[in-house]
């Protein structure tokens, strides 16, 4: 393991600290709820779901976080303005944790940004994400909102190399007038969380690992990813899944460790249902990393797994 020369920023979002040198803070873990085909969702367009089951899942993540010391974020996925606002209401009713607002559609993300500002929840919200699809109306909606935390996604659809992804953040890579980091500034984003973007394996998934290190070395912002998307989009593994679902889970959950070993500060680990497995896995990596950097003048936080579990 290693230490960055560049000072590493630590952001504080609703009490959850993210960032720092490897081994300094425990990895922050975000499980997704209300995702596509999540069985607790009854009507994805209207945002109707099994409230008891949803609360149980959130409690499951909270309990896991409490036990290992890895802070948690609730990753809310919605596909319509109606559903995402309903999900936000519910999640903030049952948990104090910060939450990610995520949708494949810009107008849904914009509405969510507006909504959390109206109801005074913007300080807990993390926008997911500022990416190369952002247009003028989404920039305006985000700038007008009170949100000051966002994931900034390094997905460059025309150049998936490390350089292509870095340039997209830095100067727009010739595809956008400005880099995504400066767009984030324009939107009032203070807490910038860099996500190098996980493309499928075969299309540069591994580049994200080196970009994690490179982005932290260059900018010092907290960096992490949804690395489980690499195994979950792996057709070979998906074919094996029918015969052996455990094999699939091992790869999906185990990918967490790869991102941590590459200095990741946060991980969007996928289905929140996996919390009881992901948190111990991440805690194990955190302990190993903490021990690896112990003589590099890096002190682990008091609620780091190394100080709680060993």
């Amino acid at each position, binding site marked *: 393991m*290693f230490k*960055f020369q560049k000072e590493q920023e630590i952001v504080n979002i609703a009490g959850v600290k993210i960032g720092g040198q490897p081994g300094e803070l425990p990895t922050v873990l975000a499980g997704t709820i209300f995702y596509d085909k999540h069985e607790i969702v009854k009507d994805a367009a209207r945002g109707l779901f099994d409230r008891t089951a949803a609360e149980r899942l959130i409690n499951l993540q909270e309990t896991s976080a409490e036990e290992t010391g890895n802070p948690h974020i609730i990753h809310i996925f919605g596909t319509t303005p109606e559903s995402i606002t309903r999900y936000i209401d519910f999640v903030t009713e049952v948990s104090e944790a910060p939450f990610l607002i995520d949708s494949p559609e810009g107008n849904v993300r914009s509405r969510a940004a507006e909504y959390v500002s109206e109801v005074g929840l913007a300080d807990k919200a993390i926008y997911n994400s500022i990416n190369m*699809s952002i247009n003028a109306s989404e920039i305006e909606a985000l700038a007008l909102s009170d949100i000051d935390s966002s994931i900034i996604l390094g997905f460059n659809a*025309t150049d*998936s*190399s*490390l*350089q292509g992804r870095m340039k997209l953040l830095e100067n727009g890579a010739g595809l956008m007038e400005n880099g995504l980091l400066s767009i984030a500034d324009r939107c009032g984003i203070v807490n910038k969380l860099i996500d190098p973007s996980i493309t499928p394996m075969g299309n540069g998934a591994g580049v994200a690992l080196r970009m994690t290190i490179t982005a932290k*070395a*260059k900018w010092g912002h907290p960096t992490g990813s949804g690395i489980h998307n690499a195994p979950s989009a792996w057709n070979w593994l998906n074919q094996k899944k029918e015969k052996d679902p455990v094999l699939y889970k091992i790869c999906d959950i185990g990918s967490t460790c790869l991102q941590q070993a590459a200095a990741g500060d946060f991980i969007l680990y996928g289905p929140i249902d996996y919390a009881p497995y992901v948190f111990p896995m991440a805690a194990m990596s955190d302990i190993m990393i903490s021990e690896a950097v112990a003589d590099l003048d890096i002190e682990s936080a008091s609620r780091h797994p190394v100080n709680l579990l060993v």
Partner: protein
Amino acid sequence: MKTVAEGWPIVKGDYTVGDPRSRIAVITLASQINPSPEAALWGSSKTENLGVEKIIVNVISNCNIRYVLICGIESRGHLAGHSLIAIHENGIDEKGRIIGSEGAIPFIENVSKAAVKRFQQQIVILDRIGLTDPEKITEIVRRYKGRGEVYPDQPLVAISQKKKQPTFTDSLSGDIIISEEFIMDAAAGVVCPTKDF
């Protein structure tokens, strides 16, 4: 004349191979629908960039395929089906953007303009976005599986080797401390003794 490239399908994906001599391939977008062995290729496609690329590469490397049926439920935000129709109708601009696509990030990285042109010439798109009834889809497959002639050219293998080329030329500068003796240049991915810096 050879009609199917060696090793076809060229790129891997979430699809099932049926009869490579069939004239039709089926894209089920975000829906999972049981495949028909009478189609050349059958599978889902959820993205407006990598998904579209894969379809183009696998279709133009098999001259037997003359029709692409787009069916199933469109993927929200990504608009993979709409983007496939747009690239077929309008092609890509200088930056690789699919002209006329309203998908979130409709850019192409690994497929050239020539390959897109070949896709436009070889293929007729059958737009049935929203259709999920397997019987109706199979009906269409049967109607088109033997229709028309083989495309009168060699199969085209169009896949960029870009990712295998070195992508940086910057000089080294240590920015990660590994130990007293060694330092790492993050962008170059090289670990060196500190004395080299």
